[in-house]
Every structure is written in C-alpha cells, then in structure tokens.
C-alpha cells in the first residue's frame, strides 16, 4: 500500500484551525463549570451550580421561554410567507423580472443594527405597537430571507412539469402544491426551519431595539446580566444554547443527513 507523506506544516495548520474553531467552545464550557464566582479559565473546582443559577434567576427563566416562543412563531410566519414566495419566484422565474428575487434577500444586506433601529423608529414607536408584536415582526423579517433563499435552492432542482403532470391527472393546483410539491422540497423546508430558528434564537442586533420593559429575549438578558455580574452564569447559558443547537443539528443529521444543508 502506498503511504502518502503529509507535510508537517499541513498538520500544524490543521491543528491551528481546529483550535481556533473549538478552543472558544472549550473555554466557555470550562468557565461554565468553574466553582468560582467570577469567569475564569481553566476552571477552578467543578460545579454545576451556575447552571442551576440560570433557572433560579427569574429573568432567565422568562426570557428562555420568550426566546423559544419568538423563534418558533417568527420561523412559522416566515415559512408561511417564504414558501409561497419562493415557489412563485421559481415557478415564474422566466416571466418575473430578475431583480425581484434579489429584493427578497435585501434585508440580509442591510446591517441588522440599522434594521433594528429603523423598525423601532418606524414601526414600534410610530404605531405604538405592543412590544411582543414588534419583536415578532422584527424576527420574522430577519429570518424571511434565509427561508426564501434555502427553499428557493431546493425548488431550483424541482422540475415543475411534475406539478403539471399531477394537474393533468385531475389534481387541483392547491392540492397539488401540498401532495406533490411540498413532499419534494421537504428537506429544504426543514433546513429553512432550522436556519431560521437558530438565527432568531441567537439574535441580538434586532432584539436589543425591540425588546422593552417586561419583555426580553435570552441573548438580551444575557447581555444585561453580563453588564452587572461577571459570574459564570453567562457561560452556562452559552453552553445551554450550544447544547440546544447541537441537539437540533443531531436530530437533522439523524433524520436527513447533514449533507443536504450544504446543498
């Protein structure tokens, strides 16, 4: 068998990149487990008390719930708008002007802080809308481009004559959409869901403007906590968020395989 000699510099480079990617995660995990009352690494003493602390602080309990709720609702709204939009953009690609699909991803190009601030000024303040509604609206807008982008990608591979075949066999157009089209872009829809969910739950830039008295999201609460305390609670919350993300990814990997995310 032929053995290929790997250049030592390549090994060193790989290790460096790996450290760069994984290092911060290890530090956060270590800091979260530290028994000290301040953030430190390596951890001094091992304890889960900072994890318990998250649930003892009322604000964290409430914001975790709010974050999950907002993420779930905004993702659902984005899917409800994004799936038909992506469908129309792909189905009528030839008839529609080319800039239209670009228009739908524009919110990604606007700095999120700008988006957040203008939403605050022009929606929340202007119409004096309830905080919850403004926040939900902002998050839906934030994740919509991702949903359209990902579903468009899987619709690009969809042959619309399949839809015509179903219609010619007597299936009405709306029914065809659910029985023929959706099952064939299922992986795209799931990928869009995950991407949107994670984007929403980690968002700071928009939430910081749209949260208000009595209603906050987890990352914003985290920020507020960090300003006052420098204890390992923030690290513990970060670890929880990581576990949540990894869990979601693991479920996807189990059910669909991660490769479809790269599509």
């Amino acid at each position, binding site marked *: 068998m032929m053995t290929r000699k790997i250049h030592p510099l390549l090994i060193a480079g790989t290790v460096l990149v790996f450290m760069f990617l994984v290092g911060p995660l290890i530090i956060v995990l270590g800091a979260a487990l530290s028994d000290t009352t301040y953030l430190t690494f390596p951890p001094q003493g091992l304890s889960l008390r900072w994890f318990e602390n998250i649930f003892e602080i009322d604000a964290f309990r409430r914001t975790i719930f709010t974050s999950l709720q907002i993420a779930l609702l905004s993702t659902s709204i984005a899917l409800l708008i994004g799936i038909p939009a992506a469908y129309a953009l792909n189905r009528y690609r030839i008839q529609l002007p080319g800039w239209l699909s670009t228009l739908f991803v524009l919110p990604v190009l606007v700095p999120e802080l700008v988006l957040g601030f203008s939403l605050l000024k022009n929606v929340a303040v202007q119409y004096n809308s309830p905080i919850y509604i403004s926040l939900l609206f902002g998050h839906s807008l934030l994740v919509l481009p991702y949903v359209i982008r990902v579903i468009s990608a899987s619709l690009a591979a969809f042959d619309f004559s399949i839809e015509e075949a*179903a219609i010619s*066999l007597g299936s009405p157009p709306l029914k065809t959409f659910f029985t023929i089209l959706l099952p064939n872009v299922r992986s795209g829809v799931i990928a869009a869901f995950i991407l949107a969910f994670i984007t929403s739950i980690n968002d700071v830039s928009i939430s910081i403007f749209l949260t208000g008295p009595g209603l906050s999201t987890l990352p914003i609460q985290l920020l507020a906590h960090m300003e006052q305390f420098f204890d390992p609670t923030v690290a513990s919350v970060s670890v929880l968020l990581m576990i949540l993300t990894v869990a979601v990814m693991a479920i996807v990997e189990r059910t669909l395989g991660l490769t479809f995310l790269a599509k």
Partner: protein
Amino acid sequence: MTQALALQSITAHYGATQVLENLSLDVAEGELVSLLGASGCGKTTTLRLVAGFLQPTSGTITLGGRDLTRLPPHQRNIGLVFQNYALFPHLSVADNVGFGLKQRAISSTDRAKRVGAMLDRVGLAHLADRLPAALSGGQKQRVALARALVIEPPLLMFDEPLSNLDAKLRIDMRIEIRQLQRANGTTSVYVTHDQEEAFSISDRVAIMHQGRIMQLDTPERLYQRPANAFVARFVGFENLIAMSVVARDGAKVTAEAAGGLPLTLSLEQFGEIPDRFVLACRADGLAVTDNAAMEGIPATLGLRTYLGRAYQYQTSGPAGTLVANGPLTRPLEPGAAVKLVPVPEQCTILAPE
C-alpha cells in the same frame, strides 16, 4: 371517423410576441397526429394550450364536442406524457400510475386492479414498489405512459417523449407507443422535432413553422407531394429549380430551367402544371452525368462526399447551387463540367414562391 379534437383559429401570445397565428387543427377519433417542427415553431405551445397550461388570445378548443377553451387544466381529462417523464419522485411506480385514479375517487381495490393490469401491459409489474429514481430512462417513460393511459383519457398528448432516450430505445419505444395507442384507440397528439419519429408512427403529421401549420397530411403525401417550398426542404428536397413551360402537347409538357434543359413532364404524374413552377428534387432525383451529349442542367462539380450508397456532389451553375448523387462505380472529380438530369418520377412540382 368522427372528429375528436378541434382547434379553431387559435392565436396565442407570449407577452407581446405572437407564437401561434390563426391555427386550426382537427384530429379524428382514434387518430395519432404529430406536430413536427424545429424548436420555436409553436408545437409545444399548441400542446400546452390544449392541456390548459396556456390560454389562447383568441380561438376555441373542443374535445369530443365539449368546449375546453376556458376549462382549468385539472378538469380537462387529458393524458400527458412529458419529455423528462415528470414522475412523482416520492411515490412508488404503482402510486405514480394510480395517482390519476385516486383523483377520480376510485376505490383502492379497484385502483389496485387497474394499476396492476396497466403495469402488466407495459411490462413493469415486477417494479411496482420501486421509486422512480431506481428505474432506467425507458422504464420511467413506460411508467409515464401507463400513468397517462390508466385514466382512459379521451385524448393523449406526448411532448417529445423519447428525446431523452438513446437511439435504439427510441425506436423500440415509439413502436410500443404506437401499438398501445392503436390497441386503445386513443386519440393522440404527438409533439416531436424528429421527422423519422413523426412519420413512422403518425396517421397524419402537421409540419409547423413560425406558429403556423405549413401542411397537414399523411406521412406519404408529405414525403412525396409537399405543398410548398418550406415543407419540400423540410422533407429533404434539397433542390428547388425554377422552371417555365415552353411547350404543351396533350398530356406532355415541356419545360426549361435557366441555362437550358428541356424536360418533358407528364400531366398524369403531376396533375396540373402552371406556366411557371418550381421543380423539387432530392439529391437522388438528380442524376449526374459527364456525358456532354445528354440533355440536362449544366453545372460544375464542387465537393464530393461519400454516402455509402452513392457519392454526393455539391454543384454550381446557371440554375444555382444544387446537390446531386452519382453512382459509386464512377467517382467524378471536382471541377468537372457535368449535366444534371432530373428523374421525373422522383421529383415533384411546386407553385413559384
């Protein structure tokens, strides 16, 4: 035979571009009519209009006396076979074939029976549980055919169904399609750009060009008696020679091309011969001779190519650029002065353009 499908004065547009111009077409019960032409001629547009995926600007479409023009596509009850098969990727072969029956609320036992019988007919019963991705191109097209036939539609339409298959399979499949169509007596419209395919399986062929039907006729008549220069060129009459009548004598007519060639034609073969006409001949219908004593169109030989059964010559002369075939026994050299002699039996005449 009663008329099944009728298109009357159909005009259609894509935006501001007119793609069909006052097109009329009748297809008789049980007949297979092909729409033949190059891409952009309007053949697929015609099919999509009948299927209901496009709306005509004006004109009507009727099927078995029922006006389809404004009916949504899912209520038209037309079987469609697509170029890229268009099978449902997430459904098994049996479920693909049964899809149309399911829409018609046919009970699952009855459905299974009819799907089974149809899969037997196309020889795919053993693949009923497979997904389309596990099938070959030919098998996929059989499933598509079965799926369209099982709903027993009054009209079956094919959109370039064999274009994605290799040459050998194409020939097998077109025979299979024709046999199934004949056996069921299903009125059919078949869209293709392949002349041999269209001629071999159709009762009649409509040759289309720029949104119009140039000629609708049996393959035999199209091949031997094209109605105009476009169809003549399309079916392989390479040489269109302008001629004028110089003498008439009973059933015999003598005509001349530019540069000479008194040619005697019989009215019996060509029917009426106008004073000015175009003689259309294939390369095979134009004999090459270097015998200076022969009566013929004078020409100079250009490039010689080998066809296997004959040599083909590009020639030029007072009658223009012509293509003629010569015997294998005597290859002639480029530059030779020759005479081109039309063989009347292999020629046809057209009105001048």
